[in-house]
């Protein structure tokens, strides 16, 4: 896997609008963004309503994923091009999901919705009609997802990458600065984690930095040992999906997992070690 296999630019997307076998999907938390205008032919996925279990804290299971994609008219052979707001956080999260359930032909639009908007490219309110399919998902690929026990066992042994902002890492904030302070019971970070905010991997327009810049960022500046396995986390697993995409898909690191329980789970666990204060 390399950058050209997983990431496309807006020109590529424009050239493939309406092409059979290519499904463009906008993924947001705030799906009113889609409703106000989206890339022509794009359908939408709601990060929470569509991709999260409505009762348990977990994401939609294999059967639920099959039902969702079948209803939205996505087939196993389709190339799925994902994009979204928040610098592609939720699109990267969905990308991780498609990989988890074994969909091979999935791409991310570099820069996502933001760059598309800042470039003044065409947006439409037309909602496409797609015929239902019979999507078949594979078993969840556990090599891409870390659960809490694995995270605890990884302290001091594997690379732990905390991709939240420095203030969240230090324990001064419990959530990003555009949301009220809420969520985990305690602030701080998992001991031995390195703080590499997701935003350092992106340019101002939301595109990813170059492979050389990214390698410099994680290996030289943050001191990640590329010979070790890595677990990325944030608050709820979407910003860390962005970093998972960088490490696993762009930089081709073999063993990188996303801990989607992230700080909202870890920071509420009883009896686990927590560090506070700025990164070193």
């Amino acid at each position, binding site marked *: 896997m390399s950058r050209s296999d997983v990431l496309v630019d807006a020109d590529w997307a424009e050239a493939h609008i309406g092409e059979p076998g290519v499904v463009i999907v906008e993924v*947001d*938390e*705030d*799906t*009113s*963004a889609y409703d*106000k205008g989206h890339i022509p032919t794009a359908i939408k996925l709601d*990060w*929470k309503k569509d991709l999260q279990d409505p009762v348990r804290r977990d994401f939609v299971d294999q059967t639920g994923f099959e039902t969702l994609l079948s209803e939205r008219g996505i087939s196993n052979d389709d190339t799925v091009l994902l994009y979204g*707001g*928040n*610098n592609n*956080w*939720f699109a990267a999260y969905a990308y991780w999901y498609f990989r988890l359930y074994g969909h091979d032909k999935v791409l991310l639009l570099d820069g996502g919705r*933001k760059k598309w*908007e*800042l*470039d*003044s490219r065409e947006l439409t309110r037309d909602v496409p009609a797609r015929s239902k399919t019979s999507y078949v998902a594979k078993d969840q690929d556990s090599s891409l997802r870390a659960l809490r026990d694995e995270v605890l066992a990884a302290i001091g042994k594997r690379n732990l990458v905390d991709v939240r*902002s*420095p*203030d969240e890492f230090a324990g*001064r*904030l419990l*959530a*990003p*600065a*555009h*949301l*009220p*302070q*809420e969520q985990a019971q305690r602030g701080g970070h998992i001991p031995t984690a390195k703080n590499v*905010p997701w*935003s*350092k991997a992106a340019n*101002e*327009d939301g595109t990813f930095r170059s492979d050389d810049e990214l390698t410099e960022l994680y290996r030289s500046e943050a001191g990640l040992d590329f010979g070790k396995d890595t677990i990325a986390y*944030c*608050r*709820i697993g*979407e*910003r860390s999906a962005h970093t998972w995409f960088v490490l696993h898909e762009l930089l081709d690191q073999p063993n990188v997992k996303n801990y989607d329980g992230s700080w909202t789970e870890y920071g509420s666990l009883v009896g686990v070690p927590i560090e506070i204060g700025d990164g070193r």
Partner: protein
Amino acid sequence: MSGDGCGAPAGGVSVSAATGTQAVVEGRVTRDGAPVVTGYVRLLGTGDEFVAEVPLGEDGGFRFFAAPGSWTLRVLAPGGLRAERSVDADYGQVTKVDVNL
């Protein structure tokens, strides 16, 4: 206001009464008196360190729940339009910053 996500609240950011225990920074972005509805505001800390970003709402509004301190707001809009403002935030205060591009 959504509780679980890191994303923008549904329907964009509306500028209205804020809670008393937050360090709120909010405002509107306009151009020639009209709200700018397509654009982004980034909240930057010391040394241009990225902290957060929100899309503009339908009224050109934005809002951040920051920590007390000094911040830079950077506005990005189509056509290469940009603006920066310095702002101080503190708990219990709603700091208003209106930007005309």
